[in-house]
Protein backbone atom coordinates (compact mmCIF):
# COMPACT_ATOMS: atom_id res chain seq x y z
CA UNK A 1 0.00 0.00 0.00
CA UNK A 2 1.16 3.50 -0.82
CA UNK A 3 2.04 5.77 2.14
CA UNK A 4 -0.43 8.28 0.73
CA UNK A 5 -3.21 5.72 0.92
CA UNK A 6 -2.33 4.78 4.49
CA UNK A 7 -2.49 8.46 5.39
CA UNK A 8 -5.88 8.69 3.75
CA UNK A 9 -7.14 5.69 5.74
CA UNK A 10 -5.84 7.18 8.97
CA UNK A 11 -7.48 10.52 8.21
CA UNK A 12 -10.75 8.77 7.31
CA UNK A 13 -10.70 6.68 10.51
CA UNK A 14 -10.18 9.68 12.75
CA UNK A 15 -12.86 11.64 10.88
CA UNK A 16 -15.24 8.74 11.31
CA UNK A 17 -14.56 8.50 15.04
CA UNK A 18 -15.69 12.11 15.37
CA UNK A 19 -18.59 11.69 12.95
CA UNK A 20 -19.94 8.73 14.90
CA UNK A 21 -19.93 10.78 18.10
CA UNK A 22 -21.79 8.88 20.78
CA UNK A 23 -21.25 5.56 19.04
CA UNK A 24 -17.52 6.10 19.48
CA UNK A 25 -18.04 6.89 23.16
CA UNK A 26 -20.19 3.76 23.56
CA UNK A 27 -17.69 1.45 21.86
CA UNK A 28 -14.71 2.88 23.70
CA UNK A 29 -16.77 2.68 26.90
CA UNK A 30 -17.37 -1.04 26.36
CA UNK A 31 -13.63 -1.53 25.93
CA UNK A 32 -12.93 0.55 29.04
CA UNK A 33 -15.27 -1.44 31.29
CA UNK A 34 -13.83 -4.74 30.12
CA UNK A 35 -10.23 -3.65 30.33
CA UNK A 36 -10.71 -2.32 33.87
CA UNK A 37 -11.95 -5.79 34.84
CA UNK A 38 -9.26 -7.61 32.85
CA UNK A 39 -6.57 -5.28 34.23
CA UNK A 40 -7.61 -5.73 37.87
CA UNK A 41 -7.91 -9.44 37.34
CA UNK A 42 -4.55 -9.74 35.63
CA UNK A 43 -2.88 -7.73 38.41
CA UNK A 44 -4.32 -10.06 41.05
CA UNK A 45 -3.66 -13.23 39.03
CA UNK A 46 -0.09 -12.39 38.12
CA UNK A 47 0.71 -11.46 41.72
CA UNK A 48 -0.84 -14.66 43.05
CA UNK A 49 1.12 -16.57 40.46
CA UNK A 50 4.28 -14.74 41.43
CA UNK A 51 3.80 -15.60 45.09
CA UNK A 52 2.91 -19.19 44.30
CA UNK A 53 6.02 -19.55 42.15
CA UNK A 54 8.17 -18.15 44.94
CA UNK A 55 6.72 -20.59 47.44
CA UNK A 56 7.12 -23.42 44.93
CA UNK A 57 10.74 -22.46 44.37
CA UNK A 58 11.36 -22.88 48.09
CA UNK A 59 10.30 -26.49 47.90
CA UNK A 60 13.35 -28.79 48.22
CA UNK A 61 13.82 -32.48 48.79
CA UNK A 62 16.06 -33.53 51.62
CA UNK A 63 17.52 -37.02 51.30
CA UNK A 64 19.15 -38.25 54.54
CA UNK A 65 22.14 -40.48 53.90
CA UNK A 66 22.55 -43.73 55.72
CA UNK A 67 25.22 -43.32 58.46
CA UNK A 68 26.86 -46.54 57.31
CA UNK A 69 27.63 -45.19 53.84
CA UNK A 70 31.30 -44.45 53.16
CA UNK A 71 32.62 -41.50 51.15
CA UNK A 72 32.71 -43.46 47.92
CA UNK A 73 29.08 -44.57 48.29
CA UNK A 74 28.01 -41.03 49.15
CA UNK A 75 29.67 -39.81 45.96
CA UNK A 76 28.01 -42.54 43.88
CA UNK A 77 24.64 -41.62 45.36
CA UNK A 78 25.15 -38.00 44.26
CA UNK A 79 25.88 -39.12 40.71
CA UNK A 80 22.79 -41.31 40.72
CA UNK A 81 20.60 -38.43 41.82
CA UNK A 82 22.14 -36.06 39.31
CA UNK A 83 21.49 -38.55 36.54
CA UNK A 84 17.77 -38.39 37.20
CA UNK A 85 15.85 -36.37 34.67
CA UNK A 86 14.06 -33.30 36.04
CA UNK A 87 16.69 -32.75 38.76
CA UNK A 88 18.17 -29.27 38.79
CA UNK A 89 20.74 -29.09 41.62
CA UNK A 90 22.09 -31.51 44.21
CA UNK A 91 23.89 -29.92 47.16
CA UNK A 92 25.69 -31.85 49.86
CA UNK A 93 24.97 -30.83 53.44
CA UNK A 94 27.22 -32.45 56.06
CA UNK A 95 25.79 -33.56 59.36
CA UNK A 96 27.50 -30.62 61.09
CA UNK A 97 25.82 -28.20 58.71
CA UNK A 98 22.55 -30.00 59.32
CA UNK A 99 22.88 -29.57 63.05
CA UNK A 100 23.82 -25.94 62.64
CA UNK A 101 20.79 -25.15 60.55
CA UNK A 102 18.60 -27.11 62.96
CA UNK A 103 19.89 -25.06 65.90
CA UNK A 104 19.44 -21.81 63.99
CA UNK A 105 15.97 -22.82 62.89
CA UNK A 106 14.84 -23.46 66.47
CA UNK A 107 15.91 -20.08 67.76
CA UNK A 108 16.41 -19.86 71.54
CA UNK A 109 15.22 -23.34 72.29
CA UNK A 110 17.88 -24.59 69.91
CA UNK A 111 20.56 -23.88 72.48
CA UNK A 112 19.87 -27.16 74.20
CA UNK A 113 20.83 -28.90 70.97
CA UNK A 114 24.27 -27.41 71.10
CA UNK A 115 25.15 -30.18 73.49
CA UNK A 116 25.02 -32.55 70.57
CA UNK A 117 27.88 -30.79 68.86
CA UNK A 118 30.23 -33.17 70.61
CA UNK A 119 28.44 -36.21 69.30
CA UNK A 120 26.22 -35.34 66.37
CA UNK A 121 23.34 -37.84 65.96
CA UNK A 122 22.24 -36.46 62.59
CA UNK A 123 23.27 -37.82 59.22
CA UNK A 124 24.69 -36.19 56.08
CA UNK A 125 22.06 -35.11 53.58
CA UNK A 126 21.58 -34.06 50.00
CA UNK A 127 19.41 -31.05 49.27
CA UNK A 128 17.78 -31.51 45.88
CA UNK A 129 15.90 -29.01 43.74
CA UNK A 130 13.71 -30.02 40.81
CA UNK A 131 13.86 -28.13 37.52
CA UNK A 132 10.08 -27.81 37.75
CA UNK A 133 8.97 -27.77 41.39
CA UNK A 134 5.81 -29.63 40.36
CA UNK A 135 7.97 -32.73 39.81
CA UNK A 136 9.15 -32.77 43.42
CA UNK A 137 6.99 -35.73 44.43
CA UNK A 138 8.09 -37.94 41.52
CA UNK A 139 11.75 -37.22 42.13
CA UNK A 140 11.41 -37.82 45.87
CA UNK A 141 9.87 -41.24 45.16
CA UNK A 142 12.72 -42.15 42.82
CA UNK A 143 15.39 -41.08 45.30
CA UNK A 144 13.86 -42.98 48.19
CA UNK A 145 14.47 -46.21 46.25
CA UNK A 146 18.25 -45.61 45.99
CA UNK A 147 20.78 -47.45 48.21
CA UNK A 148 22.04 -45.62 51.29
CA UNK A 149 19.09 -43.26 51.39
CA UNK A 150 17.69 -43.41 54.88
CA UNK A 151 14.78 -41.08 54.53
CA UNK A 152 13.38 -38.56 52.06
CA UNK A 153 11.40 -35.54 53.17
CA UNK A 154 9.83 -32.65 51.30
CA UNK A 155 6.76 -31.71 53.34
CA UNK A 156 4.63 -34.18 51.38
CA UNK A 157 1.08 -33.08 52.28
CA UNK A 158 1.79 -29.36 52.26
CA UNK A 159 3.50 -29.47 48.91
CA UNK A 160 0.76 -31.54 47.33
CA UNK A 161 -1.96 -29.18 48.56
CA UNK A 162 0.01 -26.12 47.52
CA UNK A 163 0.46 -27.38 43.99
CA UNK A 164 -3.17 -28.41 43.66
CA UNK A 165 -4.31 -25.00 44.89
CA UNK A 166 -1.94 -23.13 42.61
CA UNK A 167 -2.97 -25.12 39.56
CA UNK A 168 -6.65 -24.55 40.23
CA UNK A 169 -6.09 -20.85 40.78
CA UNK A 170 -4.13 -20.53 37.52
CA UNK A 171 -6.70 -22.42 35.46
CA UNK A 172 -9.66 -20.51 36.87
CA UNK A 173 -7.88 -17.20 36.38
CA UNK A 174 -7.00 -18.03 32.80
CA UNK A 175 -10.54 -19.12 31.93
CA UNK A 176 -12.02 -15.98 33.50
CA UNK A 177 -9.65 -13.67 31.61
CA UNK A 178 -10.32 -15.38 28.28
CA UNK A 179 -14.05 -15.20 29.00
CA UNK A 180 -13.87 -11.48 29.76
CA UNK A 181 -11.87 -10.73 26.62
CA UNK A 182 -14.28 -12.69 24.41
CA UNK A 183 -17.28 -10.93 25.96
CA UNK A 184 -15.66 -7.57 25.32
CA UNK A 185 -14.82 -8.41 21.72
CA UNK A 186 -18.41 -9.52 21.18
CA UNK A 187 -19.78 -6.29 22.68
CA UNK A 188 -17.43 -4.20 20.57
CA UNK A 189 -18.18 -6.08 17.39
CA UNK A 190 -21.88 -5.40 17.96
CA UNK A 191 -21.35 -1.72 18.60
CA UNK A 192 -19.13 -1.36 15.56
CA UNK A 193 -21.65 -3.31 13.51
CA UNK A 194 -24.13 -0.52 14.21
CA UNK A 195 -21.73 2.16 13.01
CA UNK A 196 -20.97 0.14 9.90
CA UNK A 197 -24.64 -0.43 9.18
CA UNK A 198 -25.06 3.33 9.22
CA UNK A 199 -22.32 3.44 6.61
CA UNK A 200 -23.42 0.56 4.41
CA UNK A 201 -24.37 3.09 1.71
CA UNK A 202 -20.84 4.42 1.70
CA UNK A 203 -19.43 0.89 1.43
CA UNK A 204 -21.84 0.13 -1.42
CA UNK A 205 -20.69 3.20 -3.35
CA UNK A 206 -17.05 2.39 -2.73
CA UNK A 207 -17.59 -1.06 -4.21
CA UNK A 208 -19.43 0.42 -7.16
CA UNK A 209 -16.58 2.73 -8.10
CA UNK A 210 -14.12 -0.14 -7.94
CA UNK A 211 -12.66 -0.12 -4.42
CA UNK A 212 -11.06 -3.41 -3.43
CA UNK A 213 -12.21 -5.11 -0.25
CA UNK A 214 -8.84 -4.42 1.32
CA UNK A 215 -9.20 -0.71 0.64
CA UNK A 216 -12.65 -0.68 2.24
CA UNK A 217 -11.54 -2.72 5.23
CA UNK A 218 -8.52 -0.61 6.21
CA UNK A 219 -10.27 2.44 7.70
CA UNK A 220 -12.51 0.17 9.77
CA UNK A 221 -9.48 -1.79 10.85
CA UNK A 222 -7.74 1.40 12.01
CA UNK A 223 -10.94 2.72 13.53
CA UNK A 224 -11.36 -0.46 15.59
CA UNK A 225 -7.78 -0.21 16.74
CA UNK A 226 -8.21 3.44 17.72
CA UNK A 227 -11.41 2.59 19.61
CA UNK A 228 -9.52 -0.09 21.52
CA UNK A 229 -6.66 2.28 22.28
CA UNK A 230 -9.06 5.04 23.38
CA UNK A 231 -10.86 2.54 25.59
CA UNK A 232 -7.64 1.50 27.27
CA UNK A 233 -6.66 4.99 28.45
CA UNK A 234 -8.74 4.97 31.65
CA UNK A 235 -7.78 1.38 32.60
CA UNK A 236 -4.09 2.20 32.10
CA UNK A 237 -4.28 5.35 34.23
CA UNK A 238 -6.17 3.23 36.76
CA UNK A 239 -3.47 0.58 36.81
CA UNK A 240 -0.60 3.04 37.06
CA UNK A 241 -2.14 4.93 39.99
CA UNK A 242 -4.09 2.07 41.57
CA UNK A 243 -1.19 -0.35 41.70
CA UNK A 244 1.03 2.22 43.43
CA UNK A 245 -1.68 2.72 46.03
CA UNK A 246 -2.21 -1.03 46.39
CA UNK A 247 1.51 -1.68 46.76
CA UNK A 248 1.83 1.00 49.47
CA UNK A 249 -1.16 -0.26 51.44
CA UNK A 250 0.05 -3.86 51.31
CA UNK A 251 3.56 -2.97 52.46
CA UNK A 252 2.07 -1.09 55.41
CA UNK A 253 -0.01 -3.98 56.67
CA UNK A 254 2.58 -6.66 56.10
CA UNK A 255 5.87 -5.25 57.26
CA UNK A 256 7.34 -8.74 57.62
CA UNK A 257 7.13 -9.12 53.85
CA UNK A 258 5.10 -12.33 53.72
CA UNK A 259 3.09 -10.81 50.87
CA UNK A 260 5.67 -10.30 48.20
CA UNK A 261 4.14 -8.21 45.36
CA UNK A 262 5.59 -7.75 41.90
CA UNK A 263 7.61 -4.51 41.73
CA UNK A 264 5.68 -1.44 40.52
CA UNK A 265 8.39 -0.82 37.96
CA UNK A 266 8.38 -2.70 35.58
CA UNK A 267 5.20 -4.64 36.42
CA UNK A 268 2.65 -1.79 36.25
CA UNK A 269 4.15 -0.63 32.95
CA UNK A 270 4.21 -4.12 31.49
CA UNK A 271 0.60 -4.61 32.52
CA UNK A 272 -0.32 -1.28 30.91
CA UNK A 273 1.23 -2.39 27.63
CA UNK A 274 -0.62 -5.69 27.82
CA UNK A 275 -3.90 -3.83 28.41
CA UNK A 276 -3.17 -1.49 25.50
CA UNK A 277 -2.43 -4.50 23.29
CA UNK A 278 -5.58 -6.35 24.34
CA UNK A 279 -7.63 -3.18 23.75
CA UNK A 280 -6.22 -2.68 20.26
CA UNK A 281 -6.66 -6.35 19.38
CA UNK A 282 -10.27 -6.62 20.49
CA UNK A 283 -11.02 -3.36 18.68
CA UNK A 284 -9.51 -4.66 15.45
CA UNK A 285 -11.12 -8.06 15.83
CA UNK A 286 -14.52 -6.53 16.55
CA UNK A 287 -14.43 -4.26 13.50
CA UNK A 288 -13.03 -6.85 11.11
CA UNK A 289 -15.74 -9.30 12.14
CA UNK A 290 -18.44 -6.69 11.56
CA UNK A 291 -17.21 -5.38 8.23
CA UNK A 292 -16.90 -8.84 6.71
CA UNK A 293 -20.53 -9.36 5.90
CA UNK A 294 -20.86 -5.94 4.28
CA UNK A 295 -18.19 -6.78 1.75
CA UNK A 296 -20.21 -9.50 0.08
CA UNK A 297 -22.00 -6.96 -2.18
Amino acid at each position, binding site marked *: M*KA*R*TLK*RHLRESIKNLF*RNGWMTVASAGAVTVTLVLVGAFLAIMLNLNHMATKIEDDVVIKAMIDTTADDEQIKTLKEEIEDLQKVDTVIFSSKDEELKSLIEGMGESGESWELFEQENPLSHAYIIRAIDPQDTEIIADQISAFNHVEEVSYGQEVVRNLFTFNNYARTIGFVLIVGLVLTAAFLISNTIKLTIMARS*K*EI*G*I*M*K*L*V*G*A*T*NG*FIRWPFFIEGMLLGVLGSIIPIVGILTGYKFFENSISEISAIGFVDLLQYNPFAWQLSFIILGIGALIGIWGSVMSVRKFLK*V
Partner: protein
Amino acid sequence: MIIMKDVYKTYPNGVTALNGISVDINQGEFVYIVGPSGAGKSTFVKLMYREVEPTRGQLMINNMDLSDLKEKNVPHFRREIGVIFQDFKLLSKLSVYENIAFALEVIEESPKNIRKRVMDVLDLVGLKNKARFLPDELSGGEQQRVSIARAIVNHPKIVIADEPTGNLDPETSWEIMKVFEEINARGTTILMATHSKEIVNSIKKRVIAIEDGLIVRDQHRGEYGYES
Protein backbone atom coordinates in the same frame (compact mmCIF):
# COMPACT_ATOMS: atom_id res chain seq x y z
CA MET B 1 -17.75 -4.00 -26.34
CA ILE B 2 -20.79 -5.74 -24.81
CA ILE B 3 -21.63 -9.22 -26.06
CA MET B 4 -24.45 -11.26 -24.52
CA LYS B 5 -25.10 -14.77 -25.71
CA ASP B 6 -28.16 -16.63 -24.47
CA VAL B 7 -28.05 -15.14 -20.98
CA TYR B 8 -30.41 -16.43 -18.32
CA LYS B 9 -30.88 -15.12 -14.82
CA THR B 10 -32.90 -16.91 -12.17
CA TYR B 11 -32.81 -15.53 -8.63
CA PRO B 12 -32.46 -17.82 -5.60
CA ASN B 13 -36.18 -17.31 -4.83
CA GLY B 14 -37.03 -18.95 -8.16
CA VAL B 15 -37.98 -15.78 -10.06
CA THR B 16 -36.61 -15.85 -13.61
CA ALA B 17 -35.73 -12.32 -14.72
CA LEU B 18 -33.93 -13.02 -18.00
CA ASN B 19 -34.94 -15.84 -20.30
CA GLY B 20 -32.17 -16.20 -22.85
CA ILE B 21 -31.00 -12.79 -24.05
CA SER B 22 -28.51 -12.22 -26.86
CA VAL B 23 -27.30 -8.79 -27.88
CA ASP B 24 -24.25 -6.97 -29.25
CA ILE B 25 -23.50 -3.37 -28.33
CA ASN B 26 -20.59 -1.57 -30.00
CA GLN B 27 -18.17 1.02 -28.69
CA GLY B 28 -19.67 4.51 -28.79
CA GLU B 29 -23.31 3.44 -29.09
CA PHE B 30 -26.14 5.11 -27.15
CA VAL B 31 -28.77 2.53 -26.20
CA TYR B 32 -32.08 2.90 -24.39
CA ILE B 33 -33.39 -0.11 -22.48
CA VAL B 34 -37.18 0.11 -22.28
CA GLY B 35 -40.02 -2.13 -21.17
CA PRO B 36 -42.77 -2.43 -18.57
CA SER B 37 -41.94 -2.66 -14.84
CA GLY B 38 -40.79 -6.13 -13.85
CA ALA B 39 -39.84 -7.04 -17.41
CA GLY B 40 -36.16 -7.63 -16.54
CA LYS B 41 -34.67 -4.19 -17.33
CA SER B 42 -33.14 -3.80 -13.91
CA THR B 43 -31.57 -7.25 -13.99
CA PHE B 44 -30.21 -6.52 -17.47
CA VAL B 45 -28.59 -3.32 -16.16
CA LYS B 46 -27.29 -4.97 -12.97
CA LEU B 47 -25.57 -7.65 -15.04
CA MET B 48 -23.58 -4.88 -16.73
CA TYR B 49 -21.83 -3.75 -13.57
CA ARG B 50 -21.70 -7.18 -11.99
CA GLU B 51 -24.23 -6.48 -9.25
CA VAL B 52 -25.73 -9.82 -10.30
CA GLU B 53 -24.18 -12.75 -12.14
CA PRO B 54 -25.78 -14.63 -15.03
CA THR B 55 -27.15 -18.06 -14.14
CA ARG B 56 -26.32 -19.33 -17.62
CA GLY B 57 -24.96 -17.95 -20.88
CA GLN B 58 -22.02 -15.83 -21.90
CA LEU B 59 -21.47 -12.16 -21.08
CA MET B 60 -18.41 -10.27 -22.35
CA ILE B 61 -17.84 -6.65 -21.40
CA ASN B 62 -14.66 -4.75 -22.30
CA ASN B 63 -13.16 -8.08 -23.35
CA MET B 64 -13.71 -9.52 -19.87
CA ASP B 65 -15.78 -12.66 -19.51
CA LEU B 66 -18.21 -11.88 -16.69
CA SER B 67 -19.48 -15.45 -16.54
CA ASP B 68 -15.99 -16.41 -15.41
CA LEU B 69 -14.80 -13.30 -13.54
CA LYS B 70 -12.98 -13.98 -10.27
CA GLU B 71 -14.21 -12.10 -7.21
CA LYS B 72 -10.86 -10.37 -6.76
CA ASN B 73 -11.03 -8.96 -10.30
CA VAL B 74 -14.47 -7.40 -9.84
CA PRO B 75 -13.13 -4.04 -8.51
CA HIS B 76 -10.84 -3.71 -11.53
CA PHE B 77 -13.69 -4.52 -13.89
CA ARG B 78 -15.89 -1.87 -12.24
CA ARG B 79 -13.25 0.81 -12.75
CA GLU B 80 -13.95 0.59 -16.48
CA ILE B 81 -17.66 1.19 -15.95
CA GLY B 82 -19.52 4.27 -14.71
CA VAL B 83 -22.87 3.71 -13.02
CA ILE B 84 -25.63 6.28 -12.45
CA PHE B 85 -28.80 5.72 -10.42
CA GLN B 86 -32.22 7.27 -10.14
CA ASP B 87 -31.56 8.19 -6.48
CA PHE B 88 -28.05 9.62 -7.21
CA LYS B 89 -26.39 7.68 -4.38
CA LEU B 90 -24.30 10.60 -3.17
CA LEU B 91 -22.76 10.73 0.30
CA SER B 92 -24.60 13.51 2.07
CA LYS B 93 -21.75 14.37 4.46
CA LEU B 94 -19.24 14.91 1.66
CA SER B 95 -19.05 18.00 -0.54
CA VAL B 96 -19.61 17.84 -4.30
CA TYR B 97 -15.86 17.84 -4.81
CA GLU B 98 -15.29 15.09 -2.23
CA ASN B 99 -18.06 12.92 -3.64
CA ILE B 100 -16.34 12.88 -7.02
CA ALA B 101 -12.79 12.68 -5.68
CA PHE B 102 -13.90 9.64 -3.68
CA ALA B 103 -14.08 7.59 -6.90
CA LEU B 104 -10.46 8.44 -7.67
CA GLU B 105 -9.21 7.98 -4.11
CA VAL B 106 -10.38 4.40 -4.00
CA ILE B 107 -8.28 3.60 -7.06
CA GLU B 108 -5.31 5.34 -5.39
CA GLU B 109 -4.92 8.16 -7.91
CA SER B 110 -2.38 10.88 -6.97
CA PRO B 111 -3.77 14.02 -5.27
CA LYS B 112 -2.54 16.21 -8.12
CA ASN B 113 -4.37 14.13 -10.71
CA ILE B 114 -7.46 13.91 -8.55
CA ARG B 115 -7.69 17.69 -8.34
CA LYS B 116 -7.27 18.20 -12.04
CA ARG B 117 -9.67 15.48 -13.12
CA VAL B 118 -12.39 16.45 -10.64
CA MET B 119 -12.27 20.08 -11.75
CA ASP B 120 -12.33 19.03 -15.43
CA VAL B 121 -15.37 16.85 -14.95
CA LEU B 122 -17.15 19.49 -12.84
CA ASP B 123 -16.60 21.86 -15.72
CA LEU B 124 -18.12 19.34 -18.12
CA VAL B 125 -21.32 18.97 -16.05
CA GLY B 126 -21.45 22.72 -15.37
CA LEU B 127 -20.96 22.64 -11.59
CA LYS B 128 -17.49 24.11 -11.22
CA ASN B 129 -18.78 26.87 -8.97
CA LYS B 130 -20.56 24.47 -6.63
CA ALA B 131 -17.62 22.23 -5.75
CA ARG B 132 -17.82 23.06 -2.05
CA PHE B 133 -21.56 22.59 -1.71
CA LEU B 134 -23.10 19.61 0.09
CA PRO B 135 -25.50 17.46 -1.97
CA ASP B 136 -28.48 18.61 0.11
CA GLU B 137 -27.79 22.19 -0.91
CA LEU B 138 -28.26 21.30 -4.60
CA SER B 139 -31.34 20.76 -6.76
CA GLY B 140 -32.23 17.25 -7.99
CA GLY B 141 -30.81 17.95 -11.42
CA GLU B 142 -27.57 19.24 -9.95
CA GLN B 143 -27.27 16.20 -7.72
CA GLN B 144 -27.72 13.94 -10.73
CA ARG B 145 -25.02 15.88 -12.54
CA VAL B 146 -22.70 15.26 -9.58
CA SER B 147 -23.43 11.55 -9.80
CA ILE B 148 -22.74 11.64 -13.55
CA ALA B 149 -19.48 13.45 -12.87
CA ARG B 150 -18.52 10.74 -10.38
CA ALA B 151 -19.36 8.03 -12.91
CA ILE B 152 -17.24 9.52 -15.70
CA VAL B 153 -14.31 10.98 -13.76
CA ASN B 154 -12.51 7.70 -14.27
CA HIS B 155 -12.89 7.91 -18.07
CA PRO B 156 -14.87 4.66 -18.25
CA LYS B 157 -15.55 3.08 -21.63
CA ILE B 158 -19.15 2.37 -20.68
CA VAL B 159 -21.66 4.41 -18.68
CA ILE B 160 -24.69 2.60 -17.33
CA ALA B 161 -27.62 4.72 -16.19
CA ASP B 162 -30.59 3.18 -14.39
CA GLU B 163 -33.57 5.57 -14.74
CA PRO B 164 -31.33 8.64 -14.42
CA THR B 165 -34.21 11.07 -15.00
CA GLY B 166 -36.77 9.14 -12.96
CA ASN B 167 -36.70 11.63 -10.09
CA LEU B 168 -36.37 14.79 -12.17
CA ASP B 169 -38.83 17.22 -13.73
CA PRO B 170 -38.96 17.34 -17.57
CA GLU B 171 -36.85 20.47 -17.91
CA THR B 172 -34.07 19.12 -15.70
CA SER B 173 -34.28 15.78 -17.53
CA TRP B 174 -33.42 17.53 -20.80
CA GLU B 175 -30.37 19.12 -19.22
CA ILE B 176 -29.21 15.71 -17.98
CA MET B 177 -29.75 14.23 -21.46
CA LYS B 178 -27.57 16.99 -22.91
CA VAL B 179 -24.77 15.89 -20.57
CA PHE B 180 -25.23 12.28 -21.67
CA GLU B 181 -25.09 13.24 -25.33
CA GLU B 182 -21.91 15.16 -24.70
CA ILE B 183 -20.30 12.17 -22.97
CA ASN B 184 -21.46 9.92 -25.79
CA ALA B 185 -19.99 12.30 -28.36
CA ARG B 186 -16.58 11.68 -26.76
CA GLY B 187 -16.88 8.01 -27.64
CA THR B 188 -18.26 6.60 -24.39
CA THR B 189 -20.86 3.85 -24.77
CA ILE B 190 -24.08 4.71 -22.94
CA LEU B 191 -26.67 2.24 -21.75
CA MET B 192 -29.71 3.87 -20.25
CA ALA B 193 -32.75 2.15 -18.76
CA THR B 194 -35.68 4.56 -18.87
CA HIS B 195 -39.44 4.99 -18.62
CA SER B 196 -39.44 8.36 -20.32
CA LYS B 197 -41.41 8.22 -23.57
CA GLU B 198 -40.61 11.88 -24.33
CA ILE B 199 -36.88 11.42 -24.11
CA VAL B 200 -36.74 8.19 -26.15
CA ASN B 201 -39.00 9.58 -28.87
CA SER B 202 -37.21 12.95 -29.08
CA ILE B 203 -33.57 12.02 -28.84
CA LYS B 204 -33.53 9.13 -31.29
CA LYS B 205 -31.11 6.33 -30.45
CA ARG B 206 -31.01 2.55 -30.52
CA VAL B 207 -33.89 1.09 -28.45
CA ILE B 208 -33.87 -2.39 -26.87
CA ALA B 209 -37.27 -3.41 -25.46
CA ILE B 210 -37.42 -6.16 -22.86
CA GLU B 211 -40.59 -8.02 -21.89
CA ASP B 212 -40.84 -11.12 -19.69
CA GLY B 213 -37.10 -11.50 -19.71
CA LEU B 214 -36.75 -11.50 -23.50
CA ILE B 215 -35.71 -8.90 -26.05
CA VAL B 216 -38.86 -8.23 -28.03
CA ARG B 217 -37.55 -5.32 -30.10
CA ASP B 218 -34.14 -3.93 -31.08
CA GLN B 219 -34.30 -0.89 -33.40
CA HIS B 220 -31.86 1.79 -34.47
CA ARG B 221 -33.38 5.22 -33.98
CA GLY B 222 -36.34 3.44 -32.39
CA GLU B 223 -39.49 4.55 -30.60
CA TYR B 224 -40.44 4.09 -26.94
CA GLY B 225 -43.41 1.99 -27.99
CA TYR B 226 -45.37 1.92 -24.71
CA GLU B 227 -47.95 4.20 -23.16
CA SER B 228 -46.08 6.12 -20.46
